[in-house]
C-alpha cells in the first residue's frame, strides 16, 4: 500500500473498509501503543509510517466491521506548525474520519481536554480513552468518569494501553459513536458564543466543516483557517474575510487581547472547569528531582556518560555473546545440513560453491554479524526510549545542538538515526524550518545506524578490542560536531527556538519494548536476508569464476593505493550501498571461503589498522540506497546527491588519513 498524501484520504487507498477511526491526542500519551495493541490483536494489513506524511494506518476488525485505524502524530491543537502537525490536521479536517478516539493522559487532564474540546467544536464524533489510568492511580489522581462523560457529552473509557486494558471497549464505543446523534454539551463565554452563533449560521452547509468548528478555526487563525474557505469564490471570500476581521476586532476589544488568544483562553478555562469537576483527588507529582538530576550539567553529564557507557557495554557483551553463540551453532548444525544437499544436487563444482557462498557463508554472516548487534541495540534503545530519558537529555544537550543550528527537537530524529537513518529522515518533518531539516538531514547520514554499529562491533570491537570501537565512535562524533558547526556557519539563518514538553520518567514495560524491538528487527530479517543472499552469491560467482580480479581493478587505486585495504574489501564497500552491514557480512563470507569458518579469520585477511579503517570508511560514506532515496524526497534530489558525494569524499579522505596515522603507532 502506498503512503497517504495531503490530498488523499484513508478511504481512497484501496482497502475497502466500513469505517475510518482516527486516534488523536497530545504527544506521548500512548497513541502508538494503543494503535499497536489494537492492530496487533486482529490486524489484517499494516502500513508503516508513510513517506509523504507521518500518518500510519492499519485495518482491524471489530464486532464484524472492518475499520481503518489512523494513528495521527501527537498534537496539542490544530494550529499547524510543522509538517507532521499539518498531516494530523489534514487527516482530521480534509478527510474527516467517521469517529475519533481522543487519547488522554489521565495525569494531565485539563491540558489534554483542550484538544478534545477543539475536536468536539469541529463536530467530530469523539470517544475519550482516558489512558495512563494506572500512572494516574499511582500518583493518587482519581477521576470521576461518569462526571467527565456528562460534562463532555461523550463516552469516556479508562484505559491502560501498555496492558491493553479498555482498548477494545474504546474502539467499540467509537463504532457506536458513528451512529449516535451529535450533541454539543459545552459552551464558552457569552461574548464568544454570540459571535460564533452569528457567523456559524451563515456558514453552515457552505463549508465542508460544521459552521461552529469552521468559525472557531478561522478566529484562531494560522494555517488551519485557509482550509475552511478553500472552496469559496473570490467575492464571497472577500466578504467573509471582512466579516471575520470585524468579529475578531469586536472580540479583541471585549477581551483586551487578540481573538486567537481569547478563544484559547476560553477553551482552557472550560477545560479547567470540566477537569476540576471530574477530578476527585488531584494527587501529587513527585518526579521533579529526576528532571533536575538529568538536566543539570553537574549531574546530567555524568548520567549521560554512564548511559552511553551502558549502551556500549550492553552491545559489546550482549551482542558479542549472541554473535559467538549463533556462530558456533551454525558451524555445528546448520552448515552441515545445508552443505550436504547442495553438494549432492550440484556436485562439487563451481555452481555448488557459488550457491554455498550465499546459503552457507552468507546466511551465517547475516545471523552472526548483523542480527546479534542490531537486535541488542534496538532492545537497549527501546528501554531507553521507554524511560523518557531522551526527552530530558535533549534539554541538557540543547546548547550543543544550538551550536550546530538545531533546536532540541532535532535530537529525536538524530537519536532515531542511531537505529536506522530512514525513519530518522522521515522524522525530519517534525522540524520547523527548512534550514533545520537540511542540517539535521545531513548530520543523520553521519550517525552510525544499527547496521553500521553491527559492522563497528563485529569487525572492530569483537576482533581488535573495545577501546578501538570507542575511538571510532569518538572520531565519528567529532566529524558530526564539526559538520554541524560548519553547516550552521555556512547556511544563513539561526537555530529554531526550543519549545518542548518535558515528560515524567516512566518504568519501561517489557511488552512495549519487546514489541518495538521486534517491529524494528523484523525489517532486518525479511529485507536483509534476501539482499545478503543475493550479494554473497554474486560475490561468490565473481570469486569462483575469477572475474573478481577484473571487478576490483577499477577500485584498486583508491582502495589499495590510498586506503591501504585489499581491493576486494573495496568491492564489499560498494556492495554495502545496498545495506551497510552487508560490507562486513560479505567480508566474513569471503574469509570463511578463503580461510575457513569463524569471523576471527578476518584477521588473516586484514590487519588491525585495515579493519579499523574499513569500519570507519563504511560508517562515514553514503548511508545506503534506502537512506539516499528518502533523503532525496525530504531535501530534494540535488541536495541528496551533494550530501551523498560529500560523505564519500569525507570517508575516503579520513580513511586514508587514519590508516597512515595508525601505521605510525
Amino acid at each position, binding site marked *: 500500500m502506498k503512503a497517504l498524501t495531503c490530498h488523499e484520504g484513508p478511504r481512497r487507498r484501496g482497502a475497502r473498509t466500513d469505517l475510518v477511526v482516527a486516534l488523536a491526542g497530545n504527544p506521548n500519551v500512548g497513541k502508538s501503543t494503543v494503535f499497536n495493541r489494537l492492530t496487533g490483536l486482529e490486524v489484517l494489513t499494516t502500513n508503516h509510517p508513510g513517506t509523504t506524511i507521518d500518518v500510519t494506518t492499519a485495518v482491524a476488525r471489530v464486532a464484524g466491521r472492518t475499520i481503518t485505524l489512523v494513528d495521527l502524530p501527537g498534537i*496539542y*491543537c490544530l*494550529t*499547524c*506548525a510543522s509538517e507532521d502537525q499539518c498531516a494530523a490536521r489534514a487527516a482530521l479536517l480534509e478527510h474527516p474520519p467517521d469517529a475519533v478516539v481522543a487519547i488522554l493522559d489521565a495525569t*494531565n487532564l*485539563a*491540558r489534554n481536554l*483542550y*484538544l478534545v474540546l477543539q475536536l468536539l467544536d469541529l463536530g467530530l464524533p469523539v470517544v475519550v480513552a482516558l489512558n495512563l489510568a494506572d500512572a494516574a492511580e499511582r500518583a493518587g489522581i482519581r477521576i470521576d468518569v461518569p462526571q467527565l462523560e456528562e460534562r463532555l457529552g461523550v463516552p469516556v473509557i479508562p484505559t491502560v494501553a501498555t496492558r491493553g486494558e479498555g482498548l477494545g471497549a474504546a474502539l467499540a464505543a467509537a463504532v457506536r459513536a458513528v451512529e449516535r446523534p451529535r450533541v454539543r454539551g459545552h459552551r464558552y463565554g457569552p461574548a464568544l458564543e454570540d459571535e460564533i452563533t452569528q457567523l456559524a449560521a451563515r456558514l453552515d452547509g457552505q463549508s465542508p466543516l460544521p459552521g461552529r468548528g469552521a468559525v472557531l478555526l478561522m478566529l*484562531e*487563525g*494560522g*494555517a488551519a483557517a485557509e482550509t475552511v474557505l478553500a472552496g469559496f469564490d473570490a467575492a464571497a471570500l472577500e466578504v467573509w474575510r471582512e466579516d471575520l476581521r470585524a468579529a475578531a476586532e469586536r472580540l479583541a476589544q471585549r477581551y483586551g*487581547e*487578540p481573538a*486567537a*488568544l481569547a478563544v*484559547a*483562553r476560553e477553551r*482552557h478555562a472550560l477545560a*479547567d472547569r470540566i477537569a476540576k469537576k471530574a477530578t476527585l483527588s488531584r494527587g501529587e507529582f513527585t518526579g*521533579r528531582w529526576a*528532571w*533536575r538530576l538529568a*538536566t*543539570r*550539567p553537574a549531574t546530567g553529564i555524568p548520567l549521560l556518560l554512564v548511559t552511553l557507557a551502558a549502551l556500549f557495554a550492553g552491545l559489546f557483551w550482549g551482542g558479542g555473546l549472541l554473535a559467538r553463540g549463533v556462530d558456533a551453532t551454525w558451524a555445528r548444525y546448520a552448515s552441515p545440513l545445508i552443505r550436504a544437499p547442495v553438494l549432492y544436487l550440484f556436485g562439487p563444482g563451481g555452481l555448488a560453491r557459488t550457491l554455498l557462498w550465499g546459503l552457507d557463508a552468507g546466511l551465517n554472516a547475516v545471523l552472526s554479524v548483523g542480527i546479534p548487534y542490531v537486535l541488542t541495540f534496538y532492545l537497549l534503545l527501546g528501554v531507553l526510549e521507554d524511560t523518557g530519558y531522551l526527552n530530558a537529555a*535533549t*534539554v*541538557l544537550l*540543547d*546548547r550543543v545542538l*544550538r551550536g550546530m543550528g538545531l*533546536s*532540541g527537537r532535532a535530537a529525536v530524529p538524530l537519536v532515531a538515526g542511531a537505529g536506522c537513518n530512514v525513519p530518522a529522515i522521515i522524522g525530519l518533518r517534525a522540524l520547523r524550518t527548512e534550514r533545520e531539516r537540511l542540517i539535521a538531514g545531513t548530520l543523520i547520514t553521519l550517525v552510525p545506524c544499527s547496521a553500521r554499529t553491527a559492522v563497528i562491533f563485529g569487525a572492530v570491537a569483537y576482533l581488535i578490542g573495545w577501546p578501538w570501537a570507542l575511538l571510532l565512535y569518538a572520531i565519528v562524533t567529532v566529524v558530526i560536531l564539526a559538520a554541524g558547526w560548519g553547516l550552521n556557519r555556512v547556511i544563513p539563518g539561526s537555530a529554531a*527556538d*526550543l*519549545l*518542548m*514538553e*518535558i515528560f515524567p520518567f516512566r518504568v519501561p514495560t517489557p511488552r512495549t519494548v519487546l514489541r518495538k524491538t521486534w517491529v524494528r528487527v523484523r525489517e532486518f530479517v525479511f529485507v536483509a536476508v534476501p539482499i545478503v543472499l543475493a550479494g554473497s552469491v554474486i560475490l561468490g560467482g565473481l570469486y569462483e569464476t575469477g572475474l573478481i580480479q577484473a571487478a576490483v581493478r577499477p577500485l584498486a587505486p583508491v582502495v589499495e593505493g590510498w586506503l591501504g585495504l585489499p581491493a576486494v574489501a573495496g568491492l564489499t564497500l560498494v556492495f554495502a550501498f545496498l545495506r551497510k552491514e552487508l560490507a562486513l557480512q560479505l567480508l566474513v563470507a569471503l574469509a570463511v571461503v578463503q580461510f575457513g569458518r569463524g569471523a576471527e579469520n578476518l584477521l588473516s585477511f586484514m590487519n588491525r589498522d585495515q579493519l579499523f579503517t574499513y569500519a570507519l570508511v563504511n560508517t562515514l560514506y553514503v548511508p545506503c540506497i534506502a537512506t539516499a532515496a528518502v533523503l532525496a524526497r525530504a531535501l530534494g534530489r540535488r541536495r541528496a546527491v551533494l550530501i551523498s558525494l560529500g560523505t564519500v569524499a569525507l570517508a575516503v579522505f579520513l580513511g586514508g588519513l587514519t590508516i597512515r596515522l595508525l601505521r605510525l603507532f
Partner: protein
Amino acid sequence: MPEPSSLALMPAGARATITAVPVEDATLAGELAALRLLPGERVEVVEVIPFGGPLLVQTAGGVYALSRRLAGRIAVVPAGAAEE
C-alpha cells in the same frame, strides 16, 4: 513592587505571572496558547540550564522546556506583584 521582567531573567524556583507573549507569529502564538503559556497564567521556573541553556517552566498545563531566546520574548511579573 517587583518590576515587569522577562521569563528568561527568572531564577530557578521563581514564580511569576505572564503578562505578554509574542503574537506576531500566529503559529507560535497558537502553540503557546495550547500549552497555557498565556497572559495571566502563573508559571514556576523549575530549572535553568546554565551556559545559555533552556528553562524548564511549569504551567497549569504541564512542564515545558523553552529556549532562553523564546523565554526572553515572554513578559512576566514576578509573583507577589500580580497577586496582591
